């Protein structure tokens, strides 16, 4: 049963299974295990990134297409919600539906266009075209002030049920680990949790379908795939469209969570890089990698500055080090993380764990 839910694509490493279970349970009970506004924010961001990165892995890891336009679709989703809720008199579920639907339609059209127009060109050209298109879209979003709020972005309200003002109990729930507000934010968190779980399982199913296998074949050798009778443009475009749609949904979730959206929030190139890095850290072409990578990376990124503050204080007597260890230079360490993870996880965490497992299996055999 569980195996079918996971589309028969099992983790294939005991350590990996353990890690996945721990992280999954951690996220499922995050509001109670790690009370506090910041922790909940981090957990929600982790979830949204899981969906976003998984959708990107469908494109990059499984189809072998390098696109820099993924955040564009993420942004479309976020703006869909933001614009719809901003325009609505009172924030309603209907407005949310309109936002999601509208965003999906726009993403569909755009991804179809990009796919049909440019998937014929060579891989690097495609990457660069998407980079240019994405930066054009970013500019557009920050220029159309009347619709998108320009560089300031849009701050909006969400339906009562999801807003912090909506409380289930008068008093916060007392737990051994701290107090937990049973309010709209908590409901939003679980809405996100369920949506992301569904999105993840659906993508997992897609990559393990016959279609998913063709995508891998195209990644390996598109010329040969054509000779077998697979129309690569169709497959690539479809993969592009699917991936864009899931990214759009992730964007919708982001906007619902933040109750704000602006160009830098969902469209920036930085996010694109984070996604790329997560895919690589986790292990390209393994959705479990997308999951693990997102959890580790988002947590690391969120707490890096705090960590540096402690490190900086610890080394305050030394020369030079404090200048490098201040929280202000957190990007330096993030950059280092980029470099080191490419060095040490050439096949990603999942790849590493699976290699170990298969080595162990080989040894186990006579």
């Amino acid at each position: 049963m569980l195996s079918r839910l996971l589309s028969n694509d099992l983790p294939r490493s005991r350590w990996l299974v353990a890690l996945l279970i721990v992280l999954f349970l951690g996220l499922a009970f995050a509001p109670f295990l790690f009370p506090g506004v910041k922790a909940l924010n981090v957990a929600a961001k982790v979830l949204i990134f899981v969906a976003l990165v998984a959708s990107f892995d469908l494109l990059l890891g499984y189809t072998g297409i390098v696109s820099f336009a993924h955040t564009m679709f993420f942004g479309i989703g976020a703006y869909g919600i933001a614009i719809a809720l901003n325009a609505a008199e009172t924030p309603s579920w209907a407005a949310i539906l309109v936002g999601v639907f509208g965003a999906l339609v726009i993403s569909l059209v755009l991804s179809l266009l990009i796919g049909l127009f440019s998937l014929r060109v060579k891989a690097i050209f495609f990457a660069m075209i998407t980079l240019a298109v994405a930066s054009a879209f970013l500019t557009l979003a920050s220029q159309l002030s009347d619709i998108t709020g320009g560089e300031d972005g849009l701050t909006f309200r969400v339906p009562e049920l999801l807003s912090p003002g909506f409380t289930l109990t008068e008093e916060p729930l007392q737990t051994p680990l701290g107090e937990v507000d049973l309010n709209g934010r908590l409901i939003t968190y679980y809405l996100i949790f369920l949506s992301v779980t569904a999105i993840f399982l659906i993508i997992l199913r897609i990559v393990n379908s016959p279609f998913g296998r063709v995508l891998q074949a195209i990644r390996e050798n598109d010329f040969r795939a054509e000779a077998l009778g697979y129309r690569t443009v169709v497959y690539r475009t479809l993969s592009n469209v699917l991936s864009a749609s899931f990214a759009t949904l992730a964007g919708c979730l982001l906007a619902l969570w933040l109750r704000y959206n602006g160009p830098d929030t969902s469209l920036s190139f930085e996010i694109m890089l984070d996604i790329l890095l997560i895919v690589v850290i986790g292990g390209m072409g393994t959705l479990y990698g997308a999951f693990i990578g997102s959890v580790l990376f988002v947590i690391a990124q969120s707490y890096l500055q705090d960590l540096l503050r402690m490190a900086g204080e610890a080394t305050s007597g030394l020369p030079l080090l404090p200048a490098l260890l201040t929280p202000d230079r957190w990007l330096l360490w993030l950059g280092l993380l980029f470099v080191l993870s490419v060095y040490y996880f050439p096949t990603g965490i999942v790849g590493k764990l699976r290699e170990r497992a298969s080595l162990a299996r080989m040894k186990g055999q006579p």
Partner: protein
Amino acid sequence: MLETQDLTVRFGGHVAVSAVSCAFAPGTLTAIVGPNGAGKTTYFNLISGQIKASAGRVLLGGSDISSLGAPARAQAGLGRAFQLTNLFPNLTVQENVRLAVQARARAGLNLWRIWSDRRDLLQRADEVLETVALADKRDALASSLPHGDQRKLEVGILMALEPQVFMFDEPTAGMSVDEVPVILNLIRKLKEDKSKTILLVEHKMDVVRELSDRIIVLHNGELVADGEPASVIASPVVQQAYLGINPEEKEEVAA
């Protein structure tokens, strides 16, 4: 029934295939020979749609398929093994073949079935691997196979496609002597099934002599001879331009 009419392709000023008209009947194996660079592979490329013709038409079963792209032609029943091995290097041997089986079953656009549920496809892939003597390597990555095994896999993929027309481009090049018969037997079996059209490019003349029902000779892109194997091989153009022997000294027919 496969037919080409005045099939021509020019690369810049160079005419690689020049107005070749030829029909290939089901149940026959036609060998295509000619010196290196004669245009044999290019002729295959034109038929299977890998490159676009400058002029001329390709007909399959009477209908003109000239405007179709490579995938559509493959679906229409043109199957092709490549001269320079052309595999999915980082997939396993079994997956390489399975992709062909799946293409044959037209299951590629199914997004929702779990692929491992399609046991029928897997089974068929394993059968094919048996026939090309690769069953024991089914879980190896294609890229790690020695050259000869890669050639076998190349043939296996074509077998799995079960096309109407089989095009083999030097299937045994670089294959060790004891493996060659495996492939030849396969081709022989195909011949026995009288419905298939088989085209074979091969430089090993004894293979050609033994398998073919008919030989056509390409030279500088032109079709210069066509007929019974024995008579074509004996013709002066083959003897001199291709085999490089003068009629007098016939001692050692190389390779």
